[in-house]
């Protein structure tokens, strides 16, 4: 405030208006260009690692490139036609969508209450917090292998033998039945991601001033009312970020379903990324895999933009 006032007071010996503007613009330009200089490495990395490969992928998607020889024939849009009619790729699309929506909804539904509980003071709180955070530490591929043993469909599988000794039930074909396999993959993903997202919510929860709750308590609001009218609205930015990460991560998922079920039984837990990797690398169909990758990039982009648009509107309405 003082700065602006001082600047508006004309002083003796001050440069004329035009001179001031010119000098101002020069220094400003220098400042801007200095700032932008910092962007050069980032832009370079962006172009080299993202724009170039994406353009190349688009180019290869129009050819019959095998990955082994650079002289590929131009085949127009036929790769796109093949992708859109291949049953395994369509199955991959279906499960990827189910996985993305399923994990996003379930993780959000579990992580918020978990964060609220972890935010309260209780004995060994830090220990409990780290226990829930733990699944986010090891690689998902390792979790997949471990869960593969837990969910083994045989009677000797960990979960099946527990169920048998407790209730005399089972054995259940956790990873062998199409529906159960889909569910199992999603449940393991929720188990693995819940703690991490709870920590994200926890960070936002801690930024909510305690006064709000004090005032609400004085006004006689119940715990449920406090949660619905204070906590949830103030967590909206966290919900937006968490869901954005869940949606983009879910669409790109590969490691967990692959290590748990290899995409089976049949194509029931096949993912789009598995499709891209299998057809591109092992099967020497780079052109086809590129076409799938291009469509997939567009789809992810669309979902991301749509999600941001919707969440902005929600945020604006709530806050």
């Amino acid at each position, binding site marked *: 405030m003082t700065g602006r006032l001082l600047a508006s007071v004309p002083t003796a010996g001050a440069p004329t208006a035009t001179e001031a503007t010119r000098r101002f613009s020069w220094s400003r330009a220098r400042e801007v260009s200095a700032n932008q200089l910092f962007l050069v490495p980032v832009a370079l990395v962006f172009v080299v690692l993202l724009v170039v490969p994406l353009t190349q992928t688009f180019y290869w998607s129009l050819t019959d490139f095998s990955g082994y020889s650079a002289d590929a024939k131009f085949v127009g849009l036929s790769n796109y036609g093949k992708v859109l009619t291949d049953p395994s790729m369509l199955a991959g699309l279906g499960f990827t969508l189910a996985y993305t929506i399923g994990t996003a909804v379930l993780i959000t539904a579990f992580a918020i209450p978990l964060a609220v509980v972890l935010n309260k003071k209780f004995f060994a709180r830090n220990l409990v917090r780290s226990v829930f955070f733990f699944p986010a530490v090891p690689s998902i591929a390792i979790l997949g292998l471990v869960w593969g043993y837990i969910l083994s469909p045989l009677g000797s599988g960990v979960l099946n033998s527990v169920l048998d000794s407790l209730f005399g039930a089972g054995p259940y074909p956790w990873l*062998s039945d199409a529906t159960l396999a889909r569910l199992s993959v999603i449940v393991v993903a929720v188990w693995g991601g819940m703690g991490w997202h709870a920590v994200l919510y926890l960070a936002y929860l801690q930024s909510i001033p305690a006064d709000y709750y004090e005032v609400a308590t004085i006004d006689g609001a119940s715990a449920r009312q406090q949660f619905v009218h204070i906590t949830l609205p103030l967590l909206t930015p966290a919900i937006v970020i968490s869901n954005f990460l869940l949606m983009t991560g879910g669409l790109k998922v590969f490691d967990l379903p692959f290590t748990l079920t290899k995409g089976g039984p049949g194509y029931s837990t096949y993912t789009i990324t598995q499709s891209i990797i299998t057809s591109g690398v092992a099967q020497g169909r780079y052109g086809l895999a590129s076409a799938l990758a291009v469509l997939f990039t567009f789809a992810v982009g669309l979902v991301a933009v749509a999600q941001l648009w919707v969440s902005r509107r929600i945020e604006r309405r709530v806050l």
Partner: protein
Amino acid sequence: MKLRSILAALTALVMLAGCGGSGGSGGGDGKLTFFSWDNEETMRPVIAKFEEQNPGVKVEFSNAPPVAEYISTLQSRILSGTAADVFVIAAENKTNLINGKHVVDLKDKPFLANVPDFNKTTYSGPDGAVYGLSVASWGAGVLYNQDLLAKVGATSVPKTWDEFLALCKKLKDAGITPYLESVQAMSTPLAAFLGAQNAAAGNQMDSKIFDGSAKFTDYWVEPLTQWSRLWQEGLVTRSVTGLTGDQVRTEFSNGRTAMIVAGPWDVPGVRKEAPKLKIAMAPIPGIAGGKPYLAGAASPGYAINAKAKNKEAAEKFLAFLDTPEAMALYQKATGAITVTKDFQPQLDEALTPIVSDVRAGNVYLPQIAWKRAEDILNVEATAQLQLLVQGKATPEQVAAALDTKLASTS
């Protein structure tokens, strides 16, 4: 001052890099690059011996684990022109390597004389050229727990599939899990049925399917039907589709199942987990009058890069690789069933019933025998077999799905 110190550092770096570079190109015949899918521990003794015998040559070794990672690494190196002089050619990339003219024809090389025809044909082109030196083979059959078999009075292994199923029934009635197999890849019994059928038909089955004069439905329906009896007749749980090969082996080692399908690589693991178990391996019993047969294939071969910088040393290296000396070192490290004529591998006695067939090349694996689109068909076949095991597809539908897939790739 600052600039000078930076310059000094740069000069030092350049000199260091120069030293590293000149070190490799020192001796007479120079440097040979070798890209393998076996790890360094396996290949190091072989390479050391080769370098000892060829003082002028220094082997620069690199590797990537099989299969997908190896294939993709080799693929990108070939495309960028930086592939090694000698590399591994496998069933998964042979068509692409051969069609792209990335590998040298070894047909007339003297070292190939030591290798059985089966291993040569596996890596051969349409014109009789041979592109890989394959020094080992593998065969997979049924691994029997002889103690559990004895419990139901079985003293010998079944020769026909009907006998095998009857044995399964007997074991099941005695409260023993009779048999397990992981259905996450091509089925071993199915491959063996098809192999026996192919051998009986003069090895023409796949040529006919791929030249369009026959269909998968002509050959596959009966083997699929016989294989699926395991589930149709309730002898094995349909849950097996979710099992990995390791899980199956653990069940067997713990004495919880009497028979599994297994390859030579499973035997050391079983020995380690259950040293006291009495085990034996045997070919898969035959169907419809066919003989017992093994699923299996020639191991990946060593190929010479068409653009190799040191072709002479590459040939020397391949010639060395199938000498008895090199084979002894390789066999010790891998336990593989080697096939070269002048070396007798030392193998676990449980493998005795299958060794002569494997070494003679009496083994069959569809994805190796297929003429093109191997991996595309293999992925489709695996998914279809899982549906068949689940009872969600019929043998006719599975075979027809393969025909459809093959048609879509041409």
